[in-house]
């Protein structure tokens, strides 16, 4: 008997006068004590599944077909009051953003107390005891101290542990965890996942794990369901699904992840991106067809069903798609771009340091200074990509800000192409702009929404004296769009009028405008879906091959760094703890911190 069963559920909304099936024919089951993963890129509808179970569909969305049964009761037929009664008690949730999911003005103790009272625990003292036990069960040290704290005094990992403790406190039958580790660092993610495994093993609780990370899901779940554009395209046992994906989309998901071991092959990137909600209505047949490498005429026209191909494994498709498994495999192994060791480095950083001395407490006493960057030395050869890896707070973004002159270093030297640009920004701005450029993490906020893309990508020509004339800028913009694989008609569009992947290309094009010697890229693919990420990574590789550009690639994602960078530096608490050729560092890490990082990768 299933604990939770979704049977052929359609969730429908209306946009522009058309009915849109946000979820189409979704069937999914979670048994007692089972861990089931729902995997998909953003917009695939996986979070909608969570909202459906919670009974909190957004305004204008409704279930138009199918049933949702929980413990043999039809959730959709239940009175709203009764449904709310199940939440937190029989069905608990673990959120995506732990830091913001706790009320900032209430202490952890007050929030636990409220939750346990809601679960029917009488007596303040008894509730406190239970809260202490719950915090202890998630291995948080000094729980009594924690109860008096406020969320901003806790780390992301601590918040998520506390929220997990809350979720398990009522011994629920089902827990829905929606991207519970996405906001956390790799090592914290591994520990939190371990914790979820442990708590779930000890209980009868069924767990629905919603994530974009196929490998992470496969590592922890028994069964997986892969979603694309509101449909489940493939379900089956986790291990089989990862090692032998059957649906072309699942295959492309596996192929788009560079991995941290094995030969480095050029990533097979799907073209384009997943359609948005309003695009669903134009896809009567297989919703993956427009991007599918093995589609035929029938795919786009006919609606396809999930069929059992191998016992226990269901795949959506007309049949043709599964036969040509080889279409996506067989990429050539990438040649490792060997940097010219004899050439003088294009970027040379020596003993860079930055300490933040800001803030006073209420008596006006100075707070302890924060050493953000401590003696960082790093060289990048012409045409070389060097990875800078670390967790949040390791100081890697401060290094980027120092290189760009957004902060002035306390010590050390920065030399680019033989020119010393260590001094304060005002003095070195002219040199910097021509030599070194930054690609920002979030193109959404890095691009002025009120400027057209043609203007945006040539922004750095505005500082010239005399200012560049518009025809000249237009010509440069066309060239830049061509270099970054953007269609020419985007030149007159605004950033909101292009997709997320294209926005990141615009962001890159802007950095290339002055033809800088060095690019600094700070987490530029972490906000992208894997299939789009693969496109951008390949673009960067092509740029290096064609233009001999050098890059400091800052990332927390070891597999991406391995794919792009021939050398890597591992940063922890402001210091580089280890650096060397990527393959060597990954195969035989020397420092304990590097070992821990590598072990935490799913």
């Amino acid at each position: 008997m299933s604990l939770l069963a979704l049977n052929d559920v359609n969730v429908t909304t209306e946009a522009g006068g058309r009915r849109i099936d946000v979820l189409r024919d979704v069937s999914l089951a979670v048994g007692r004590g089972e861990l089931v993963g729902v995997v998909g890129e953003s917009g695939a509808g996986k979070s909608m599944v969570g909202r459906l179970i919670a009974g909190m569909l957004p305004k204008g969305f409704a279930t138009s077909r199918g049933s949702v049964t929980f413990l043999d009761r039809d959730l959709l037929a239940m009175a709203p009051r009764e449904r709310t009664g199940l939440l937190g008690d029989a069905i608990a949730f673990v959120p995506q953003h732990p830091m913001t999911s706790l009320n900032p003005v209430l202490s952890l103790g007050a929030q636990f107390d409220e939750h346990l009272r809601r679960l029917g625990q009488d007596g303040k003292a008894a509730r406190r005891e239970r809260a202490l036990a719950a915090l202890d069960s998630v291995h948080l040290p000094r729980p009594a101290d924690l109860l008096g704290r406020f969320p901003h005094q806790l780390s992301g990992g601590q918040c998520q542990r506390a929220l997990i403790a809350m979720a398990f406190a009522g011994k629920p039958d089902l827990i829905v965890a929606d991207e519970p580790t996405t906001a956390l660092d790799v090592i914290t993610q591994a520990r939190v996942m371990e914790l979820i495994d442990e708590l779930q093993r000890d209980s009868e609780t069924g767990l629905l794990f919603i994530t974009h990370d196929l490998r992470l899901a496969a590592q922890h779940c028994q069964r997986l369901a892969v979603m694309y554009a509101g449909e489940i395209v493939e379900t089956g046992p986790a291990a089989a699904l990862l090692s032998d994906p059957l649906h072309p989309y699942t295959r492309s998901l596996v192929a788009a992840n560079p991995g941290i071991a094995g030969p480095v092959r050029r990533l097979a990137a799907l073209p384009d991106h997943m359609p948005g909600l309003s695009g669903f209505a134009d896809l009567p047949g297989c919703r993956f067809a427009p991007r599918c490498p093995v589609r035929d005429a029938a795919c786009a026209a006919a609606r396809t069903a999930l069929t059992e191909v191998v016992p226990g494994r269901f795949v959506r498709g007309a049949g043709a798609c599964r036969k040509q498994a080889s279409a996506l495999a067989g990429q050539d192994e990438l040649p490792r771009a060997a940097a010219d060791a004899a050439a003088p480095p294009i970027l040379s950083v020596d003993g860079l340091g930055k300490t933040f001395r800001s803030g006073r407490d209420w008596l006006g006493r100075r707070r302890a200074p924060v050493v953000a960057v401590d003696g960082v030395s790093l060289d990048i050869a012409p045409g070389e990509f060097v990875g800078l890896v670390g967790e949040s707070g390791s100081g890697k973004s401060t290094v980027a800000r120092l290189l760009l002159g957004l902060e002035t270093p306390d010590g050390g030297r920065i030399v680019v192409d033989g020119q010393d640009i260590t001094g304060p920004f005002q003095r070195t701005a002219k040199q910097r702009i021509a030599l070194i450029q930054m690609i920002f993490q979030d193109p959404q906020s890095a691009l002025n929404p009120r400027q057209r893309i043609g203007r945006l990508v040539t922004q750095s020509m505005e500082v010239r004296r005399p200012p560049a004339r518009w025809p000249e800028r237009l010509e440069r913009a066309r060239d830049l769009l061509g270099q970054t694989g953007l269609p020419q008609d985007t030149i007159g569009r605004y950033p909101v009028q292009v997709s997320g992947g294209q926005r990141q290309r615009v962001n890159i094009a802007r950095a290339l405008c002055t033809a800088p010697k060095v690019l600094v890229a700070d987490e530029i693919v972490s906000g992208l879906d894997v299939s789009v990420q693969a496109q951008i990574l390949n673009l960067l590789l092509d740029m290096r091959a064609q233009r001999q550009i050098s890059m400091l690639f800052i990332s927390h994602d070891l597999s991406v760094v391995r794919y792009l960078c021939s050398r890597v530096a591992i940063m922890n608490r402001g210091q580089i703890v280890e650096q060397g050729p990527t393959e060597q560092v990954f195969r035989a890490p020397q420092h304990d911190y590097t070992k821990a990082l590598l072990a935490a990768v799913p």
Partner: protein
Amino acid sequence: MSGEILGIVLRRIAVAIPLMLLVSILVFIVLRLIPADPVAMSMPPNATNEDIEALRREMGLHLPVMHQYAIWLGHILEGDLGRSIAFGQPVFKLIGQSLPATIELAVLGALFATAIGLPGGILLFRLRGRPSEQAVDVGSTLMMSIPEFLWALFLILVFGVAFNLLPFAGRLPPDMTIPRVTGFLLLDCLLTGDLTAFLEAIRHMLLPALALALGTVPLIMRLLRSSLLDVIGEDYVTMARLRGVPERRVINRHALRNALLPTLSLMGVQFGFLFGGTLLVEVIYSYPGLGNLMVEAVRNTDLPIIQGAALVFALAVLTINLAVDVVYIVVNPKLRRAR
């Protein structure tokens, strides 16, 4: 925690001292610049030039301005604000007599503004997306665009004259007197055990306090509504719902406590304005407070009173801001020291 708050209060007071000095300089200089000659006003029309010169010397007006200021400041610090030209009494005493009435009025006005504004903001939020939201919105815009002295007149016409429900002059009926103990009428009524007078005093304060409050109410309502709209989309609100917390409690405990923070800052500023608003409202309601005293003094060009009252108004605004800051720190744990 109490130690922290004490520390913050002390720091704010330390900041307030130079501010008050600055205010006193401004008050002094501005009143020296206006074309009114206190000497000419205190002399009979047939005074000789020698008489005038003698009085100037007596009043210290022959000294350099900064010297005059220093003398004036020294006197203030001793509690001597000078003598009223019109009444011949010490300014300190005159202000002391009228200030309690104004404080009572302003406090009641602030209470009204809070008591109407906060529930009003929640109401506006609850009505979001409904047609009635528009009606309340239009009503609040109207309310905001009418200045307090017009409200004062309007309230008199409706509740005082047309329906004859409430008194609109003075602090008590003419036949009633209460012995002065603290100067705070409500307190004095209770101290002397005169409940009838207490109720009468409240009845007399209702209209002026309401007139003061009405201009502030729509601002509080709107800010609270928009803060609630922001907060309701926050993760912790969703999470509270996902824990099965009933909707009413989600709003009152989780959303409201966070949404109140910006509203509180606004209330600090607004209550400062509200204190200044007593000036006109007191005149209209013949309410014997500081505002009335000040308007009377302006009419008589009674410089010592104007100076004294202006200083008291500035001090009141600083005090209100300080009080709001303290409340803000109490309700916002992020501003407290990290343990």
